[in-house]
């Protein structure tokens, strides 16, 4: 099977199609990709490198299934709104949608907007033998299943938070890559040299966007932002310690203005070679290795998240594909979702550094190493981070409000606010929202 590419199969199938014969791989299963040939489905994804990979493969998918696909990429914020408005209306214009698990999981579950896919997965006439639950990592299944264990999405790509570091700056000052939070702060301090315009650390200061930076530290204290019983933990002593680390790194050792930075400003500062460490998602790596955009090609280290006082944890986020309950073409949509998270698509995703599939069969495939366009260290950090993966945001409905409210408190600490007071104020403001949402 390894030497037969899907493209080859399609061509073969096309040639034999007239005689009504399927390609050799299909002979083993009853799966019929062409079952809904001629139907048209609408796919609305969030604009991202992951969606680009899917878009590139569309002609292949159309040839494979004979389906017509209306394909649209919309920027994240607008896409999330559009989804909520259309799903509330009960007549969405799309059959496949992007789901950001870390933001929408609980909302989609509780509102019953997305279909249970277990039945479709069990139907051998439209599900290939490679699409089995056991091939998805546990993080992926955790994201895509609801509390009753029903599969309501196919996990596509996982995002681990890592520390990008500038090896040249580290070597110049003779600093070793930090292994603990304390070492990290010490390193950031040593590497900061405002006269040279060099700073030890950068990460998001912008409210909302900054929350994963904070949880990255909080998780190292062994505390989740919302505990298993649904209690908000963002003003616990551990959270205050984590907040102090955040405050210190971003206000003392980061470039001025970091208070308003989102990932893109962090990325450009880091790519200029003026920042020693950047804490963010692993998916932002490709431009760093692009000579047209980056001044630090070949100098980037991909570091595992340092160890906190309690544990080492990499804040984890994930994206997947869902099918609205209201869609009238669920089976055809299933074919699309299944193809979009297939091994071939997963391979394209990881070898270009655009994302990290949840599938064991892709990650354990030695051949991706040879096709990898990213440094091998990147892939090693992916693998290591997978072992210490922990959800970076709580699985609750008002995620955005959570990120905003606590995020504003964190931002305020950067302009001089007291960490304990700000976190207490923000947590008190958010607690009633959380309680209300879980009751409703």
């Amino acid at each position: 099977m390894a030497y037969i590419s899907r493209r080859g199969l399609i061509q073969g199938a096309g040639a034999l199609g007239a005689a009504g014969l399927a390609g050799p791989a299909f002979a083993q299963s009853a799966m019929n990709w062409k079952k809904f040939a001629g139907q048209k489905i609408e796919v609305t994804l969030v604009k991202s490198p992951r969606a680009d990979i899917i878009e590139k493969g569309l002609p292949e998918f159309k040839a494979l299934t004979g389906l017509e696909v209306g394909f649209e990429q919309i920027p994240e914020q607008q896409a999330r709104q559009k989804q909520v408005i259309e799903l509330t209306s009960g007549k969405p214009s799309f059959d496949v949608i992007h789901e950001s698990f870390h933001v929408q999981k609980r909302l989609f579950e509780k509102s019953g907007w997305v279909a249970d896919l277990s039945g479709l997965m069990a139907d051998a006439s439209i599900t290939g033998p490679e699409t089995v639950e056991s091939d998805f990592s546990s993080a992926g299944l955790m994201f895509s299943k609801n509390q009753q264990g029903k599969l309501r999405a196919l996990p596509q790509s996982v995002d681990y938070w890592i520390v990008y570091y500038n090896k040249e700056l580290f070597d110049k000052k003779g600093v070793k890559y930090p292994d603990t939070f304390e070492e990290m702060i010490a390193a950031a301090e040593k590497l900061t040299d405002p006269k040279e315009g060099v700073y030890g650390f950068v990460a998001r200061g912008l409210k909302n966007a900054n929350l994963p930076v904070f949880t990255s530290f909080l998780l190292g204290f062994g505390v989740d932002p919302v505990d298993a019983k649904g209690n908000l933990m963002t003003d616990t002593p551990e959270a205050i310690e984590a907040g102090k680390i955040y405050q210190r790194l971003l206000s003392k050792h980061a470039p001025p203005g970091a208070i308003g930075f989102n990932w893109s400003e962090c990325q450009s500062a880091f790519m200029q070679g003026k920042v020693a460490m950047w804490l963010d998602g692993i998916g932002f790596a490709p431009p760093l290795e692009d000579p047209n955009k980056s001044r630090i090609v070949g100098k980037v280290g991909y570091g595992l998240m340092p160890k906190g006082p309690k544990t080492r944890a990499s804040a984890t986020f994930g994206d997947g594909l869902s099918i609205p309950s209201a869609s009238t073409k669920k089976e055809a949509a299933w074919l699309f979702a299944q193809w979009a998270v297939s091994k071939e698509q997963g391979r394209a995703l990881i070898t270009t550094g655009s994302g990290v599939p949840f599938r064991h069969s892709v990650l354990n495939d030695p051949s991706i190493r040879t096709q990898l366009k990213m440094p091998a260290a990147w892939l090693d950090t992916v693998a290591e981070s997978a072992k210490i993966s922990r959800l970076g945001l709580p699985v609750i409905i008002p995620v955005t409000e959570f990120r905003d409210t606590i995020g504003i408190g964190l931002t305020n600490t950067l302009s001089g606010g007291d960490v304990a007071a700000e976190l207490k104020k923000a947590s008190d403001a958010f607690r009633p929202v959380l309680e209300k949402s879980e009751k409703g």
Partner: protein
Amino acid sequence: MTQAATPATPGRIGLSSRDYWPFVAPALIVVGSVIVFPWVFTIYMAMHEWKAGGAQSFVGLGNFARLASDARFLESIVHTLLYTGLAVTAPVVLGVFSAVIFHERFPLRGLLRGLFIMPMMATPVAIALVWVMMFHPQLGVLNYLLSFVGLGPLTWVFNPATVIPSLVLVETWQWTPLVMLIVLGGLASLPTEPYESALIDGASRWQMFRHITWPMILPFVMVAVIIRTIDALKSFDIIFAITQGGPGTASETINIYLYNTAFAYYNMGYGSAIAVVFFIIVVALSLVMLWLRQRSKWNADAGAAA
């Protein structure tokens, strides 16, 4: 006239209610569906606890009571008023100034006028994204320019203290030309006789501006002020694209907070309550504006032309 008991004689227009309804109905339907219905519905939503994807329940004036003690909302009112105040004053002052300059005759005036108007024609979001890059504290061109005149780097929109003035800078850059156009129109319509007699009387340039030009263009300036106030109050795109209301909530205007509440937290009821309060503020400001305009209208002819 109100009774049309007998059929109208040929050529006479009947005015019974049956006759004029077909003509009034389209307008009523349009007004009813695009103005009255959304309004009533907004008020209805404002009286409910209403979250997308969840159930709704009647809370009466609860949402409004919550607004009164919502520090973030009260802060956003202050931000809105400050932003509006600055974003009206700066373009109007600069716009009048540039109109007076461009009213003079000098070589290449047409070309320069054309260039000056260009910012107005650009898309606000595109402008905003360019300005974000220019504002960047390390890589932005603004700090680079400051370094030439010996000033240290500023953090512009990345600092709670300077974020609103920085946003107003963008707004000013974009909308000064509009004020200039309006005032230029006014200047062009001014009679020349008063200036001639002023010259004969030996008036200085400043005296001519202060006592002849300014009073006569005041109605036009007021129009510009009203248009700018409306624009600045509802300003959303530039703020949202540059700071999204940040850092923290330092540039969060009512509009941005309203947007976040309704479309990021999906809290439609509370968002509607904010919209209602915002509407009241807008109406109040409009009344003030109209009153000011009446006062500036002592020159009835120019006022009517505006």
